[in-house]
C-alpha cells in the first residue's frame, strides 16, 4: 500500500500529461498538421542527440534557479511573485562584476555569482521587510518590484553602463574568464546547470534535515503554530525571502555569465514567472523543481524544432504549453478521486472474501 501511494502521484501526473497531449493533438490537427510529425519533432528537438539535449538543459538552467527561488520563498510562507525582478537584479550585478572587476578567473565567477545572490536576495528583502513591519501583502509588492527592477536595470544599461555603439541598452561583453565553463561545446550548456542541481539538493537537505528548514516549513503552513513552538517568525520570513531572492538572482547570473555573456535590457522573457509556475507544479519541492524546469526547457527548445518541421507557429506551441500546464495543475484532485475509488474496490474484495477488513 505504501508503494502504491508512492507511485500514485507520478502515475497521475503522467495521465494528466497524456490528456494534455491529446488536446494538443487536436489543436495541431486543426492547424492542418500531422501530430506525429509535430510531436516527433518536439521530442527530437528536445532530447535527440547530445546537442539537442544540451539545448534543453541550457534553457532549463535559469528556470531551475527561478523555480527554486520561488519554491523556497513559498515554502517559508512568502508568496514570491517577484522572481523576475530578483533575476534582473542578480543578472545586473553579475554582469557588472563580470565586466569591470579585475580578478583572476578562478575568483571572478564565484564573486560574480555571490554578487548576483546578494543583489537578488537583498531585493527580495524589500517585500519581506514591508510584510513583517507593516503587514503589506507581498503578492502585490513583489509583483510591482518586478517592473521596477526591469526599468532600473534598463536605465543602467542605457546610461551609466551602456556599451558604446550599441543600438539597444546593453553592457559590453563580460571578460572571457567570467564565462561559465561549457559542459558541451557548440552549445550554451554549462556548469550553471550543475550549480542549479547542487542548489536544489542543498535546499532540499536544508528543509528536510535542519532546524531552520523545519521552522520554515512549519511557518509556511501555519504561522501561529510556528510562533507557538518558538519560531522567530520575522527572522525566518526574512531568511527564506533572502534565500529565494538570492537563487532567482543567480538565475540572472546564469543567464548573463552562461548564455548571453552580457546584460541586455529586457534580458528575461519571463523566467521569473515560469519559475513561479514550475515551483507550484513541483509543489514547492526543491527536487521537484528540476524535472519541471527540464520539462519547460524541453518544450521551449523542442518547440523550435516543431515550428521548423511543421507549420505550427510559435504561438500555437505556446497554447500547447498552456494546456499541458493546465492539466498538470489539475492532477492532484484526479489523484484524490482515484485513491478513494481504489480503496472502495479493495473493501468490496475483502467483503467478498468475508473478512470485515479492519
Amino acid at each position, binding site marked *: 500500500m505504501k508503494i502504491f*501511494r508512492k507511485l500514485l502521484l507520478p502515475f497521475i501526473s503522467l495521465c494528466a500529461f497524456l490528456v494534455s497531449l491529446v488536446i494538443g493533438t487536436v489543436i495541431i490537427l486543426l492547424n492542418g498538421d500531422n501530430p506525429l510529425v509535430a510531436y516527433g519533432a518536439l521530442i527530437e528537438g528536445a532530447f535527440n542527440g547530445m546537442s539537442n539535449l544540451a539545448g534543453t538543459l541550457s534553457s532549463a538552467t535559469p528556470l531551475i534557479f527561478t523555480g527554486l527561488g520561488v519554491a523556497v520563498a513559498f515554502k517559508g510562507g512568502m508568496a514570491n511573485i517577484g522572481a523576475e525582478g530578483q533575476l534582473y537584479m542578480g543578472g545586473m550585478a553579475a554582469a557588472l562584476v563580470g565586466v569591470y572587476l579585475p580578478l583572476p578567473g578562478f575568483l571572478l565567477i564565484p564573486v560574480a555569482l555571490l554578487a548576483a545572490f546578494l543583489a537578488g536576495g537583498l531585493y527580495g528583502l524589500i517585500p519581506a521587510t514591508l510584510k513583517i513591519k507593516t503587514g503589506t501583502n507581498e503578492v502585490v509588492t513583489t509583483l510591482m518590484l518586478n517592473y521596477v527592477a526591469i526599468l532600473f536595470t534598463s536605465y543602467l544599461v542605457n546610461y551609466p553602463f551602456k556599451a558604446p555603439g550599441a543600438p539597444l541598452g546593453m553592457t559590453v561583453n563580460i571578460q572571457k574568464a567570467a564565462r561559465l565553463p561549457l559542459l558541451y561545446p557548440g552549445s550554451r550548456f554549462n556548469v550553471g546547470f550543475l550549480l542549479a542541481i547542487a542548489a536544489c539538493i542543498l535546499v532540499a537537505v536544508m528543509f528536510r534535515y535542519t532546524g531552520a528548514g523545519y521552522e520554515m516549513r512549519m511557518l509556511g503552513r501555519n504561522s501561529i503554530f510556528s510562533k507557538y513552538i518558538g519560531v522567530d517568525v520575522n527572522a525566518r520570513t526574512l531568511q527564506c525571502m533572502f534565500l529565494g531572492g538570492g537563487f532567482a538572482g543567480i538565475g540572472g547570473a546564469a543567464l548573463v555569465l552562461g548564455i548571453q555573456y552580457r546584460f541586455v535590457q529586457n534580458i528575461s522573457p519571463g523566467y521569473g514567472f515560469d519559475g513561479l509556475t514550475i515551483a507550484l507544479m513541483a509543489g514547492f519541492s526543491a527536487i521537484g523543481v528540476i524535472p519541471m524546469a527540464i520539462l519547460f526547457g524541453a518544450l521551449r527548445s523542442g518547440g523550435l524544432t516543431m515550428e521548423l518541421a511543421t507549420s505550427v507557429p510559435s504561438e500555437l506551441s505556446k497554447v500547447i504549453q498552456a494546456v499541458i500546464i493546465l492539466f498538470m495543475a489539475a492532477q492532484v484532485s484526479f489523484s484524490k478521486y482515484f485513491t478513494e475509488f481504489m480503496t472502495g474496490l479493495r473493501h468490496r474484495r475483502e467483503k467478498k472474501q468475508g473478512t470485515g*477488513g479492519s
Partner: protein
Amino acid sequence: MPNIEYAVEMTDVCKNYGLLQANKDVNIKVIKGEIHAIVGENGAGKTTLTSILYGLVAPSSGNVKVNGRPVKISSPKAAIALGIGMVHQHFKLVPNFTVAENICLGQEPLKSLRRVDKKKMIAHARNISEKYGLKVDPEKKVCDLSVGLLQRVEILKALSRGADILILDEPTAVLTPLECQELFKVLRGMSEQGKTVLLITHKLKEVMEVSHHITVLRRGLTMGTVKTSDTDEHRLAGLMMGREADFVPLEKKPQEEEKITFSIRGLQVRDSFNMIKLKDISLDVKAGEILTVAGVEGNGQSELVEALMGFAHIEQGQVLVDGEDIAHQDVRSRRKYCSFIPEDRMKTGLNLAASVHDNLLGGRQRSPEIRRGPFFDYKKSSRLAADLVEKFNIKTAGLDIEASSLSGGNQQKIVVAREMSFGNKVLVVAQPSRGVDIGATNFIHEQLIAARNAGRAVLLISTDLDEVYALSDRIHVLFDGKIVGSFTPDSISQQEIGLYMTGVKGLEGTA
C-alpha cells in the same frame, strides 16, 4: 416491533478517506421523536457518519432512508430540504460575518429590491438567543468570539432553522453545566414535539441523562444499538473500547513540599480591541500541585493562556518561574521552563497541514535528542514520535500522514503528548480533554496527575467541572477578568461554583 416510525435509517454505509476507512458497513436506525446518542472513541467515525447524513460527505457505498423514504443526500442543501439540521464539531462559521449574519446565512430575510434586511437578521438572532438561553451579542463579529461563544452561535444557527432531525456533534464540549442543562431542556422539548435528535458526545453522563437509545461505533464498525435504560456508563465504555473499561480511580499523593514554582503577580492584559481582559490577576502554583482556573468562556481564560504563552502583550505584572520573571521573554525562552496546551488545537496547537511526525517534534527542532551533528536524525525523531504515538495511543494511519486527517480527539492527543514530553516543571493546560473520548480523557488525566505527583506545577484552565473536580488541588474562579473566589474541591459543590462562574456570587467579595 410492528409500527415504529424511523426518522433515519442508514444501512451498510461505508466511507473511505484515501486509503483509510472511516465507516465500514455502519447500520443505524433512529426512531422518530427520540434522542439518539452516538458514542465511540475518537476516530470511531461518528462525525463521518453524521456528515454523510447531512450531505457533507458522500458515502462510498450504503443506503440512507429518511422518514422511511430512501434518499440520496448529495449536499447540505438537500439535507436541509429534508428537515435535517446539524451542529458541527468543528464550527462552520464565517469569521468576518456578525453573529446574526452567520445565524441567518443561506436564509437571509429580504426587503425591497431583494436587499438583505440587516435589522431583521439582528432581531431574529437576538430572539432565538434569548429563546434558547444561549446569550451572545448578535452584532459582534464571529472572529472576535471565544470558543465557548462560537459553540453557542453554532448551536443557535442550527436551532434557528427549526429542523425536524437535529444532529449535534459534541455540542457540550465547551459549555458550562448550566448551559448544558439549558441545551438538554431544549432537546427534550424538541423530542416531546416529535422532533428527532442525534447527539454525539463523549460525556457518558450526559448520554445516560438525555438519550433514549445509544448506538456505539468502534473503528468505523457498528457495535450495536442499546436502550439507554438497559445499560450504564461502564458497559458503554467497555463496548466503545472493545475491552473492559477499568479506570483505576486517580489517586493523588499528598503534597509534601510547599515550594512555589510558578506564580503570577498583578497581571493585566488587553485584547485586540484594547479592552482590559485581565485585571490584576495574582496566583501561586506550588510544585506538585494542580491549580485550576475555572470560568465561563469569555471571562479571560483565553487571554490568560495567551499571555502566559507569550502571544498577548503583558501590560502590567510579572510571571515568575522559580522567581525569574518571564513576562517579557519570547516564546522560545519560555518553553525552556513551561509547556503549553492551548485551547485552540486547530490553529495553535497543531499544524494541520504538517505530518503527525512534524507535529510531535514541535519545539524540539533545536534539541540534540533528534539530531546527529547539525542535522536531523530521522531514526531518532521517528523513534521519539513513534514512542509518543504508542504511549498516548494516538490512532493514526502513520507518522507521515497529515494531522488534519486525524479525528478531533486524536489531534488533541498529539498536542498533549508533545507538551507532556518535555518534562518541564511548569505546565499550562487549557481544556486538555476537549472533544476527547473517555478513554483518552482518563488517560490525559492520569498523565496530569502523574506530572503533579512528579512535583511539577500544573495550571489548569477548564470549563468542564467534572474535570476540574477530578484534578484540582485548588480552584480559582475567574469572572469578568477577575478572580472572584478560591476554593478546594471538597469545600464547595458544583452547583455553587457554577454561581460564582456566572457572576451570581463572588463579586461582592472582590469589590
